[in-house]
């Protein structure tokens, strides 16, 4: 089997990098909402990353990754042409795509990247796609142009007002829903806190909502149970039962807490890694390839 390589790499903003990775089987098989698991090195952890796009003809999948921890920083240091130690997928149950009517697609931060193939599929399925693309600040907005291509309307929101309308994802959802006679379904992908409040707003507005959860995972095939989340009072495994769930049923507080399980160790790992970087004189984050 050919090893998977980073075919191209592009910086999308501070600490945010878009990678195109050669993985012909995955490029052919992936569906909106699915993810891959990546390992950077022999000692690497298994990092789940949602697929942002794929090119079956070129045999590549596209990932948009924010360098937040040791593994993602290490990934950002890989050059074009580098081999990824491991990539497995596509994993997870694909997003249910149907003709709902009018849909809101709300992406927060790099959550817009996995939202893109969903919005695209919803658009192709004949939905009126109203997208709300949000970030803390203009520099952290990703894939706006791509979203514009597959949406009937795009509302850009930034917390600081540096681009688009000033406000949060929830404000954006209210604005769009407020001027529509009816919204039939909403999709929200972003940081857990954003999905929590987005779901609270759509609950209030009576709009059924799908969210894509990002708990800690190891195998991604249902074997370890690390990714368990409580949905509607039942324990589900995000890797096989999800990652999509009914946002109105998800226990987001539990998810947020579980995501913090290894906060201290992650800190230690970063220190260990930075120490190593200083020794070798390299470091920093993703660059234009």
């Amino acid at each position, binding site marked *: 089997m050919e090893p998977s390589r980073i075919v191209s790499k592009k910086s999308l903003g501070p600490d945010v990098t878009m990678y195109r990775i050669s993985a012909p089987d995955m490029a052919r*098989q992936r569906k909106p909402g699915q993810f891959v698991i990546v390992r950077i090195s022999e000692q690497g952890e298994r990092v789940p990353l949602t697929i942002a796009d794929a090119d079956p003809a070129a045999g590549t999948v596209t990932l948009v990754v924010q360098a937040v921890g040791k593994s993602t920083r290490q990934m950002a240091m890989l050059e074009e042409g580098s081999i990824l130690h491991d990539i497995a997928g596509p994993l997870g149950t694909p997003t249910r795509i149907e003709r709902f009517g009018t849909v809101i697609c709300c992406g927060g931060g790099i959550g817009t990247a996995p939202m893109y193939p969903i919005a695209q599929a919803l658009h192709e399925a004949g939905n009126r796609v109203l997208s709300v693309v949000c970030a803390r600040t203009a520099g952290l907005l990703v894939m706006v142009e791509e979203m514009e291509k597959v949406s009937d309307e795009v509302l850009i929101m930034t917390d600081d007002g540096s681009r688009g309308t000033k406000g949060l994802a929830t404000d954006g959802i209210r604005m769009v829903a407020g001027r529509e006679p009816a919204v039939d379904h909403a999709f929200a992908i972003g940081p857990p806190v954003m999905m929590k409040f987005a779901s609270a707003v759509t609950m209030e507005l009576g709009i059924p909502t799908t969210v894509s959860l990002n708990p800690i995972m190891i195998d991604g095939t249902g074997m370890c149970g690390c990714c368990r989340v409580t949905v509607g009072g039942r324990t589900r495994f995000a890797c096989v039962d999800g990652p999509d769930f009914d946002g109105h049923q998800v226990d987001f507080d539990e998810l947020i807490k579980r995501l913090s399980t290894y906060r201290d160790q992650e800190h230690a790992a970063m220190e260990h890694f930075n120490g190593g970087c200083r020794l070798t004189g390299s470091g920093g984050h993703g660059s234009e390839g």
Partner: protein
Amino acid sequence: MAGAGSPDRGDMEAKDRLAIPPQKMPEQEPAERVGNLREVPLGYTPEMAVLEAKRCLHCKRAVCIEGCPVGVDIPGFLAAVAKGDFASGIRIIRRRNVLPAVCGRVCPQEQQCQLACTVGKFHHDPGKSVSIGRIERFLADWERETEAVALPGKVPSSGRSVVVIGSGPAGLTVAGDLVQLGHSVTVLEALHEAGGVLVYGIPEFRLPKAIVSREVKFLEDLGVEFRLNTIAGRTIPLDELMREYDAVFIGSGAGLPRFQGIPGENLLGVYSANEYLTRVNLMRAFDFPNSDTPIQRGGTVITVGGGNVAMDCARTALRMGAERSIVVYRRSEVEMPARREEVHHAREEGVEFHFLEDPVEITGGPWGWVNGVRLVRMTLGEPDSSGRRSSIPVEGSEFVREADTVLVAIGNSPNPLVASSFPELETTRWGGIAVNEATGQTSVRGVFAGGDIVLGAATVILAMGQGRIAARAMHAYLSTGRWEGLEEAIGVAGTEIGSRVLV
């Protein structure tokens, strides 16, 4: 089989054989071994192996072979070892067992070949049976260490191809058997390393990973192709596999951890046994931060369950720095399904056992971290369907044991990932794949299954036994093209290649 007066008996009298004391296996001292991950039993020396092999009486009826799920010629290899001919010994085992270094370590011999052993019967103590497993292990280690591995000669290609889903014990057995019968074999593994439960589940101190990778390498040398990071039904659709290969074997395992369904199971610091062991074994969390995968260390660790996996968890916890490692089990010690040897090792290392206690809630403190387990005391009642005495809660007996980490080791269900992407496949009530027990045939033509996906959570050797049954039937199917009445075709196809006979 060696009968009376055969050369295998040598010139030793039975009474001399019976007079040889059982050879003890040297072990790392408990106090030392809890501080490392190295293997606990250190293995026989050649002298010990020869002496132990001489204890075999070469009974007319080899009851030990009947006790072996893969039918290894046990008296045959013992005779070779008794003569100091280790090369012949390992060759005899390899005819029937593709994973001798693994089986010599993790098979429950005391419930199989050694249970039936006449020597043990003579001494009225199955613990004094010939230590078949230890000699098997010795031979496999000798082979590896002396690099005396003799690859069987190249087999003419049958022109048929097989895909094996899952590289655990069942899949590796099927792969090893079929490649040696001339079929082209591809093994798909979802994880980044081959071996299934042998690499993610069984700890280093019971089964060093280097040994698993050596066995996998042996199969690669025989011509088996391993495709890692490949999820059947996801990376490659099953209908594509059905088109590209002449037969399919599903050995995807019982990898879906069970929980009790009590409050608090999603608190921080609560792990399934699979997750905890996978972090340490496959992901090398013991070496954090040199390896990237973290794990909760130290403190008081409570393991819930009484099987081998529970023992693996409790002993691993000690090696991850637990100050106290406690096992709670809802029945009494005699009902515990774990091997005696594992329980003994755990006790020696300082694992505390509390019987007749069943968790009713996992309790939490600030920010959702676990801080204890609420337990109810149990009493034994009538035997249940499993033949073990059931346990009944004692009303009003609830109490809390403090814990910083809780490991849930109460079993696994069949992993539904493959079956769910294959709707034509018939499943059993509990979610396993339904098969013809004599052949491993599923409800779909050309598709076979075996191991824990059929059995539910069982043992390595039982999974291998099922792999053997399926391999034999797959060979018959590939040779004759018959699907209906495949049992009869097995004899017709013949499974003899050179000295290798699959029966």
